[in-house]
């Protein structure tokens, strides 16, 4: 069994702050982390490896941080720059075409963009079936039985390999990454693949291949804050009740 896991390195968005004077993002000193949903995906792959002896490859468009996989591929090329989700998924699909896989596993979404689009778009480019929001997976003889989270509960779906699965961070408690393992990961040869090495039409890569453009970005206009009272509970309740009456809420 061959499994490819797509991972992304993201800034820890919990630690991003806005410079109140310039209104821009302060990214300096914000640590990069492995995207939480991708950790769930990697753990799912590693459990399949434990169970069925799978061969696990990770592929990323940023530096890999995972250990205990068998192979690591870094897709990197200036031609990929400025890619939106469609162009990103196209490049990844181009690279995946030259790999053997039974499953392609990806995190549901990355915490920097939160789009959840790249994996389903990649599945479409590869002509593979997909199941998103996967929380559990059983495999038997070429057929996967997956549990998918929905708003109302869950679904059980059957999908034949090869397929693309997107996994939630909560799916599997990621194993503890041993310090030794991490050190080994640095030693492991990461294969660097460029645009010329993958099966793609260069016109569909990067900014050129992206249908969407960021027209502008801005920090949210702050609404003017209301009045703040530093009072005791008795007085606070009086203020709240009179405000609610004034607003006809009660």
């Amino acid at each position, binding site marked *: 069994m061959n499994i490819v896991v797509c991972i992304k390195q993201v800034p820890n968005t919990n630690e991003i702050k806005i410079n109140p004077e310039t209104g821009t993002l302060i990214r300096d000193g914000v640590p990069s982390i492995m995207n939480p949903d991708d950790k769930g995906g990697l753990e799912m792959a590693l459990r399949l490896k434990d169970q069925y002896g799978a061969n696990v490859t990770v592929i990323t468009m940023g530096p890999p941080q995972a250990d205990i996989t068998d192979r690591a591929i870094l897709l990197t090329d200036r031609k990929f720059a400025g890619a939106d989700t469609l162009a990103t998924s196209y490049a990844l699909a181009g690279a995946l075409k030259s790999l053997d896989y039974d499953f392609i596993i990806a995190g549901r979404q990355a915490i920097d963009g939160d789009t959840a689009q790249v994996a389903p778009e990649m599945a479409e480019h590869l002509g593979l079936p997909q199941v998103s929001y996967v929380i559990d997976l059983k495999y038997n003889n070429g057929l996967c039985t997956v549990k998918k989270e929905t708003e109302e509960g869950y679904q059980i779906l059957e999908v034949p390999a090869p397929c693309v699965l997107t996994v939630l961070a909560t799916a599997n408690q990621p194993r503890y990454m041993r310090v030794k393992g991490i050190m080994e990961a640095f030693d492991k040869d990461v294969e660097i693949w460029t645009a010329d090495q993958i099966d793609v039409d260069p016109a569909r890569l990067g900014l050129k291949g992206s249908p969407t453009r960021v027209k502008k970005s801005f920090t949210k206009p702050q609404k003017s804050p209301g009045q703040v009272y530093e009072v005791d*509970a008795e007085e606070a309740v009086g203020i709240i009740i009179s405000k609610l009456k004034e607003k006809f809420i009660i």
Partner: protein
Amino acid sequence: MEKSDYKNVFVFAEQRDGVIQSVALELLGKAHELAGVLNEKVVAVLPGHNITRHAQMLIEYGADEVICIDEPELKDYLTEQYAQTICQVVDKFKPSILMIGATTIGRDLGPRLAARLTTGLTADCTRLEISEEGELMMTRPAFGGNLMATIMCTEHRPQMSTVRPGVMQKMQRDPERKGNVINFKPEFDKSKFLVRLVENVKVDKGKVDITDAKVLVSGGRGVGCKEGFEKLQALADVFPNAEVSSSRAMVDAGIIDHDRQVGQTGKTVRPDLYFALGISGAIQHLAGMEESDFIIAVNKDKFAPIFSVADLGIVCDLNKVVPLLTTRLAAEIEKK
């Protein structure tokens, strides 16, 4: 692709078990506004089985036309069945804009469609407007809500966006509204139907939809424990249509269920009244509630960021304020 061939604002009318989802009606409200600017039609696309009877409701909420695709294969959502259907609708009717609710279904279907149609898709838009050139401007939060980005898709059609439930507002339902119903028959390539739905399980753990509540009594780290939330529930019980909700910290701590979480990774809410009790106001939380009509924040820390969006801020211990407020409010409402 000839851009001028593409016209009208399409909405994917999501149904589950034959029930039209609220987000579809919200999107129709927005579509009506956008189509007004463009001087185009609002078209609802309704795939499912035995669903044609819902077409009139979609018209009453703003659709000028409803394209019904009534097939047994479309009874339950499956990616490929729905992707083939909507793709053929797009090829035939050529919409300029296609809006989809950012539900688990919409977020699975949207990207599959965008890749098949080779067009752009902007996820989780919070604002949609038409530019002077008649292009769709899609604004969405990025970096966990720290930054807003306005995205355009000027060279490809349709311009696609997903919008989370609760973000846009429905039109007032108008039972007199008239519109056309078109039945569309897709040609399926069944050899691609590889995923099979074995079981659709609804877990009834007293799930609530906090986006429907008029009043939300929301608690954060400052509430601390289950007993603290019981006090919040008592306050919520005073109002006729109120629910308890929470910040992410309390969900991660296992004190509150995820379906009650407000914020970037939870729900987007806009109730008439939002109590933020012991919530410091991380940007991810603010992103989910700052559109509420009236926000009352109670927090011991006078520098808490929640005060920057609160209409009324109280620097005080919520454990003292909440029980007293519950008693007084109950008495006030009793008087009426």
